[in-house]
């Protein structure tokens, strides 16, 4: 009933897309952190207009499922680009548009909402007293930020970023909906050949689980290492 050799065959088949999935998730995480950082800045400095726009965007991102956002991006983005391409007079073929770009853009934006919260929390965790101490010693604002605040905020934020990384890896299983091949998508493709669905999905679960368990151990070691200092 459960063919273990098919399971292992699927397992090794799925392993081939692991590096791709990890890389894609990392790219999304980094872009998410960058966009999240900008959102935090807009929020902290209450930049007029942008501040309100960001608030509406964040509310939307938190209030709609990722899958819905993905579909919106998948069907909306090529049209949007086509429109701007028409304005700017360059050629764009929506049929040649790689859906991976859709995934990268929509996931980065979606996860930037969470990264923004992480960044804000990390900065707030540095006590104001330390900032005052630095100022009283004659540090400029930039020096205070660079030498005192950011090093501590990074230590505070890193474990949460790494946590987000795991979440992104798992969320990428939705990307097959727009025909991007990650771990789950590979499992579906494997089973399409022999109709052994249980084995291939079990193999997918095993890959996810192993991957996350391993990354968790590595991250925890790393966190303990940096925490020793603080």
């Amino acid at each position, binding site marked *: 009933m459960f063919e273990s050799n098919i399971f292992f065959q699927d397992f090794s088949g799925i392993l081939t897309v692991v590096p791709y999935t990890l890389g894609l998730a990392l790219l999304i995480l980094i872009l998410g952190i960058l966009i999240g950082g900008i959102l935090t800045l807009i929020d902290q400095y209450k930049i007029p207009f942008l501040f309100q726009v960001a608030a509406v965007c964040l509310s939307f991102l938190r209030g709609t499922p990722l899958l819905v956002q993905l579909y919106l991006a998948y069907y909306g983005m090529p049209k949007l680009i086509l429109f701007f391409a028409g304005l700017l007079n360059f050629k764009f073929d929506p049929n040649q548009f790689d859906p991976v770009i859709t995934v990268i853009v929509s996931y980065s934006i979606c996860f930037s909402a969470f990264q923004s919260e992480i960044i804000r929390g990390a900065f707030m965790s540095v*006590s104001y*007293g*330390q900032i*005052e*101490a*630095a*100022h*009283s*010693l*004659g*540090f*400029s604002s930039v*020096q205070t930020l660079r*030498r*005192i605040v950011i*090093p*501590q905020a990074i*230590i505070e934020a890193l474990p949460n970023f790494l946590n987000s990384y795991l979440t992104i890896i798992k969320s990428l299983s939705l990307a097959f909906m727009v025909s991007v091949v990650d771990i789950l998508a590979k499992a579906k493709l494997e089973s399409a050949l022999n109709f052994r669905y249980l084995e291939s999905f079990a193999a997918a679960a095993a890959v996810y689980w192993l991957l996350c368990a391993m990354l968790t151990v590595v991250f925890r070691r790393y966190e303990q290492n940096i925490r020793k*200092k*603080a």
Partner: protein
Amino acid sequence: MLALKNIHKSFNDHEILKGIDLKINKGDVVTIIGPSGTGKTTLLRCVNYLEKPDEGEIAFSDFQLNYQSVKRKDILRLRRRTAMVFQQYNLFKNKTAIENVMEAQIVVQKKSKKAAYEKSLEELNRVGLADKLDAYPSQLSGGQQQRVSIARALAMEPEIILFDEPTSALDPELVGEVLNVIDQIARSGVTILLVTHEMSFAQNISTKIVFMDQGKIVEEGPPSQIFNHSREKRTKEFLSHFNSNYTKITTAK
């Protein structure tokens, strides 16, 4: 060496400082005493611009600053001549004791690492922490943290060190070690402006006592005058609470 002129400061319509004038000479140990909420700490924070006074002037022997028209450069200049020791120590949490002392020397004074290290070693020695160089703040007691922060201030060789209730956050067992260090610094000729509730300590180390109440200086003079022959009724009243021992209040008014 340092003169404050007509310092005014309000927080939301509530006037905390109502025109403070104060002169401090080189080597003076000036202690500000007075009830809580009087503006002692605010005055201290105004001196190195952690609070911006609404009005007033600060003058060093060769440098003057009017608080109503300050430039960023002036603020940095002012802060580089003064150093502050906080009630809550405010050490940099991600740095060891010696790194805490070195940091500003490297960043602000642009000293080499080696020079900063040697200076820091000397100052940590002075506060009796030569054996805790590589400890992080979380591994130190409150008294030790406060002594590191004193070393951090000393290492900048400021013209004046501002102490903001340096022992208020410490439990009674640890107060002594910090007071000893301050006493020793005071006797080595460093100019000090101190806010404290440790009256006998203030009486002992100060060259001048300033009594503040409700945003004004009520009386100032040498400790013997303030503590024994005060001219003002309010000063006497305030200090009478420190001379009497604790007695349990049994009758309600």
